[in-house]
């Protein structure tokens, strides 16, 4: 909201208080000021000139050549096209070198110029050229009689008009959010009341009573809607619409409101002044039955004064006359009955409408107005009559000929919300953290009184504080609310800091958080992956490419952009979405994210909350094609990622690194019928389980690792020249939490030297490495301390359908140094074992 400094000064004397001081005080005690800007700053640059003469331009009928006294030096010759310029006027002159607003947020510089051959030494300005509205029919004749104001000639116009800090007026912008709970502050008078309390000054009074009225028949008013608690209609006669006075137009502009005509301007002025929206009807357009406030009928239509045809529902409230809607209650007036230039008789509407109903209507119609914004904050029902009195009194000042032909009509069942709240001074101090020395009772009482609260029982431990109606609708109803009033008057900033004293106790362990931390440390550390955070929204196109567009997801009803409705079930798809761009930029991507996914089909609890899953997703992608040779397995993204995941699970102590023959993890290829993500490679994916003492899978599934489905890779653009080797994995943190811990255990360092031997098998190409390793371990009868696959070969040197695999084997005993005999026995057994799995020991 924009607040004009001069406007505030109408309500409280601001002498000696600069706009910036005011802004700071309001920020610290009332509401956040977002900016302080001079209003019409050009007025500080143009100077008062006295038009001495005007002659016709020899070569242009419409132009005049003026001589203007600007105080110093010779009078300036200025060519001017305005029809209203004439000798004797005091005007605003932009001399050469002055910068004026260009109307588009910039400025332009006045230069010496020749207009149709005549030299012009500056410009006489119109109001529009100075940022004072749309008026451009002629130059702005300053509101000073030249005879008495010779001393003003040559002064900056702002100074001549009575400047504050060099400017005509200042605009203080207040953050609307910080006024959400203060319906009383949506006008200048409300803000002025805060300023008065801060400065300890009195408010200037305004009219609160209507003048006498005639005894003609009042306009009938009937209120049917529950949403209207008060409706006042006041007939006013003898009007002559026209232009509002300069001060009012300028203040409206400063407050961000474009002047229209006197009557509309007065209506707006009163709303921006006392925060009470009001509406003016041309009374001749109303029917004899007067005003009926009723709920709209389903599908009923009306044209609002912005020219839009609105289709309404029974939730909306209408002001009607003769059965026809004349206004959408609290939101906007109707086109037909609006005030025109020729209006002489009007009906002033001042009412109180239900906040929720106005809010719903304005939201549904997408029609937010100054009026609806104020009603939805919960306005004081005692305000309408005061606001009406203020409006009529302002109008009467400007048009003394007006009259009220009849008594005001009123409808609605309102009650005064003013209430009493118990306040205990000790409790106030206890919550604020102040003692009686810093905040004595008397000071508290003064603070409340200056903010308009009434205090009784101030000599007791428990005061009764009267909350005025303007504060009681929504804002103040609890002791805490008054603690706030006292706290902000004291200024929170002045409250001394205190240390929290508390019992010392260990903070409970949060195992999931611990796991997440260990995962991040491992992956970002020795695994050298980059941690990413991606949006919870999954883009529709990506889902199509990944084949998951049909999966059930939670959907945003109002997504940030079309196609971003889906809330992800897993973090992996988001990561895959990052692959193409990162490959293009860096040729590789080692990414992981610890995040959440949502399964809408499984809900839990009282409120049927969707299930939240916690997982870490990993993606390893490298530009270039995937090697088709099985021998290159170790250098594929899939096996690099498998190694990363194994290391991760060991480091998380959910599995223990394997020792000879007992794998740390059991990796299983999902069966044909098992569900895997559509973007996983059915032939190249695997699931990890922890292994028990015998090397069998145990516990929950810990991880899923897969190459990307080739068709999906191509859909992502990772084909042809951009082909890439992409693997991904997911590790369920929920499963990790349910999996038994396998803490790291020390293994003794061997005391006796071992014997190293290489063992090579020729095997059928479908034989698993793990089966062959099992043979090697069994053959050692407890002596095999380590088995490392170091070679895998398939090609011309082995028979078709066969492969060669070779291991470094370490034989070691805890009790003796092994000799050739032990080695020989081992190799004999290995040879037999190889045959059992359909292979043979290679001796070449």
């Amino acid at each position, binding site marked *: 909201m924009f607040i004009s400094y001069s406007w505030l000064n109408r309500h409280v004397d601001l002498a000696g208080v600069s706009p910036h001081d005011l802004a700071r005080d309001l920020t610290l005690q009332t*509401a956040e000021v977002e900016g302080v800007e001079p209003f019409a700053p050009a007025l500080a640059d143009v100077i008062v000139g006295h038009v001495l003469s005007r002659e016709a331009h020899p070569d242009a009928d419409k132009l005049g050549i003026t001589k203007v006294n600007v105080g110093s030096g010779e009078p300036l010759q200025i060519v001017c096209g305005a029809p209203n310029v004439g000798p004797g006027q005091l005007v605003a002159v932009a001399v050469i070198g002055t910068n004026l607003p260009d109307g588009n947020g910039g400025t332009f510089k006045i230069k010496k110029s020749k207009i149709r051959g005549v030299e012009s030494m500056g410009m006489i300005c119109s109001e529009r050229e100075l940022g004072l509205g749309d008026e451009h029919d002629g130059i702005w004749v300053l509101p000073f009689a030249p005879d008495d104001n010779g001393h003003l000639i040559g002064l900056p116009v702002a100074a001549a008009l009575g400047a504050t800090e060099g400017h005509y007026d200042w605009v203080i912008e207040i953050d609307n*959010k910080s006024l*959400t*709970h203060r319906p009383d502050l949506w006008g200048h008078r409300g803000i002025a009341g805060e300023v008065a309390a801060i400065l300890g000054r009195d408010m200037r009074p305004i009219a609160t009573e209507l003048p006498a009225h005639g005894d003609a028949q009042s306009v009938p008013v009937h209120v049917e809607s529950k949403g209207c608690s008060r409706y006042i209609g006041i007939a006013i006669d003898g009007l002559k619409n026209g232009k509002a006075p300069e001060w009012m137009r300028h203040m409206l502009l400063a407050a961000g409101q474009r002047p229209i005509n006197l009557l509309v301007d007065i209506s707006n002025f009163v709303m921006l002044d006392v925060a009470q929206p009001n509406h003016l009807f041309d009374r001749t357009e109303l029917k004899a039955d007067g005003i009926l406030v009723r709920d709209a009928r389903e599908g009923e239509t009306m044209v609002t004064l912005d020219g839009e045809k609105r289709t309404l529902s029974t939730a909306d409230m209408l002001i009607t006359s003769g059965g026809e809607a004349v206004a959408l209650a609290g939101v906007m007036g109707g086109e037909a009955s609006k005030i025109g230039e020729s209006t002489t008789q009007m009906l002033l509407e001042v009412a109180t409408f239900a906040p*929720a109903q106005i*809010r*719903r209507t304005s939201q549904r119609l997408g029609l937010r107005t100054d009026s609806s914004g104020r009603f*939805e904050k919960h306005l004081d029902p005692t305000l309408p009559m005061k606001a009406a009195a203020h409006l009529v009194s302002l109008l009467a000042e400007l048009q003394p000929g007006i009259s009220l032909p009849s008594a005001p009509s009123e409808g609605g069942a309102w009650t005064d919300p003013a209430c009493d709240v118990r306040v205990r001074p000790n409790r106030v101090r*206890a*919550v*604020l*953290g*102040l003692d009686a020395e810093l905040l004595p009772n008397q000071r508290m009482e003064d603070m409340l009184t200056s903010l308009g609260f009434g205090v009784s029982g101030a000599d007791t431990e428990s005061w009764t504080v009267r909350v005025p109606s303007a504060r009681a609708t929504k804002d103040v109803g609890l002791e*805490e*609310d008054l*603690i*706030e009033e006292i*706290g*902000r008057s004291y200024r*929170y*900033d002045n*409250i*001394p*800091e*205190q240390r*929290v004293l*508390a*019992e*010392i106790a260990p*903070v409970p362990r949060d195992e999931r*958080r611990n796991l997440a931390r260990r995962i991040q440390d491992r992956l*970002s*550390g020795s695994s*050298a*992956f*980059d*941690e*990413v*955070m*991606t*949006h*919870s929204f999954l883009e529709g196109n990506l889902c199509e490419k990944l084949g998951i567009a049909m999966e059930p997801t*939670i*959907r*945003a*009803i*109002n997504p*940030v952009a079309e196609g971003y409705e889906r*809330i992800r079930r897993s973090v992996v798809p*988001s*990561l895959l979405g*990052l692959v193409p*761009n*990162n490959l293009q930029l860096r040729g590789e991507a*080692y990414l992981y994210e610890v995040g*959440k996914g*949502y399964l*809408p089909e499984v809900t839990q609890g009282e*409120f049927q*909350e969707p299930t939240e899953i916690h997982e870490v997703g990993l993606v390893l992608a490298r530009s270039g094609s995937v090697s088709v040779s099985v021998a290159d397995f170790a250098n594929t993204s899939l096996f690099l990622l498998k190694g990363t995941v194994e290391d991760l699970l060991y480091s998380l102590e959910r599995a223990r690194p394997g020792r000879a023959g007992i794998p740390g993890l059991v990796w299983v290829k999902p069966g044909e019928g098992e569900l895997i993500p559509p973007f996983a490679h059915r032939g190249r994916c695997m699931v990890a389980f922890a292994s028990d003492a015998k090397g069998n899978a145990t516990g929950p599934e810990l991880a899923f690792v897969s190459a990307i489905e080739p068709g999906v890779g191509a859909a992502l653009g990772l084909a042809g020249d951009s082909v890439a080797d992409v693997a991904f994995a997911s590790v369920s943190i929920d499963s990790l939490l349910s999996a038994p811990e396998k803490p790291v255990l020390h293994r003794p360092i061997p005391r006796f030297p071992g014997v190293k031997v290489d063992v090579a098998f020729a095997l059928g190409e479908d034989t698993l490495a793990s089966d062959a390793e099992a043979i090697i371990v069994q053959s050692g009868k407890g002596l095999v301390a380590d088995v490392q696959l170091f070679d895998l070969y398939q090609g011309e040197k082995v028979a078709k359908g066969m492969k060669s695999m070779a291991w470094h084997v370490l034989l070691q005993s805890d009790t003796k140094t092994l000799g050739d005999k032990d080695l020989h026995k081992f190799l004999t057994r290995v040879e037999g074992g190889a045959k059992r799995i359909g292979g043979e020991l290679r001796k070449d």
Partner: protein
Amino acid sequence: METTLQPELHQHLQDAKARIDAATAAEELRAVERDYIDKGGVVAGLLAAITTLPPEQRRDAGQGANILKGAVLKALGDRKAELEAMAIDAARSGHGFDPSLPGTSIRRGSLHPVTRVTRELEDIFSSMGYDILDGPEVEIDVYNFERLNIPGDHPARDMHDTFWCEVNGAERDSNMGLLLRTHTSCVQVRTMERLQPPFRVVVPGRVFRQETVDASHEHTFHQMEGLVVGEGLTVGHLIGTMKTFLREVFQKEIEVRLRPGYFPFVEPGFELDARCPFCATPGAGCRVCKQTGWVELCPCGMVHPAVLQMSGIDTEKYTGFAFGLGLSRLVMLRYEIDDIRHLMGGDTRFLSQF
């Protein structure tokens, strides 16, 4: 000794010494050793030839051969020691050394900047005895609004730019309305329903606002909520806590100011501003603080009694304070990140810097 050698042996010795002296590498010495000392070498040949000599010459010949062997071995040993000494000397040279040649690169990983700052804050609050809690990102109306004193038609809902959600287009009861949480404050309610006071908790996490994304706005960003409930807690404790926390984060004394701020779930509610830590002189203004000298750091306040009561907490016995730190903002301040979109952008050129 040499003089006693027969001329033939003497010649051998001369030849060997010449080669040894000329040798500059271990292999050359090894070759000399092979030619003279090893099986099949000169010395072995001489010894083998002894049997063909008349008996009276055998002793001298034998001695001569051994002398030759000893002399060659000694010369080899001396030269070897000499060469090693020379090699060490040579190794001491820094000739041609270029310290500006690049270190050999290794693969390294990175921790997301939001994680880094979150951890730092978690550690600070942990050290002050706070629990670190988590809560769902897909929330329901009750926790995001209603039990935070923001009922259905409350205008404060406007500030939240909520992402509303649905499942299969199905309507849900209004209090069960699905949404993406607009603040971490929902976890305040969840905490109060679960824990008995006194307690101190912080809750880091992502939050969502339906906003157009630009350099300073993201629809997804991070916050850290704090909630402390106990007996006798005051505004002074809130100020003290925030000051302590800021001292720890910035490792210097930071001036703060507290001003009124409106949030329906606190009363009184505040905005906490900190003296911009980036201004050349405190309060002078700079780009980061938009020339105001203050940075808006976190909304906070005393927990509204209605919120405490809705969670079954006795408001005569307990008071509490809550704060909502803008984590993403702190991250941007800390690392001088000028575009918030980097945080959720997943570009490894950005990520790998951390």
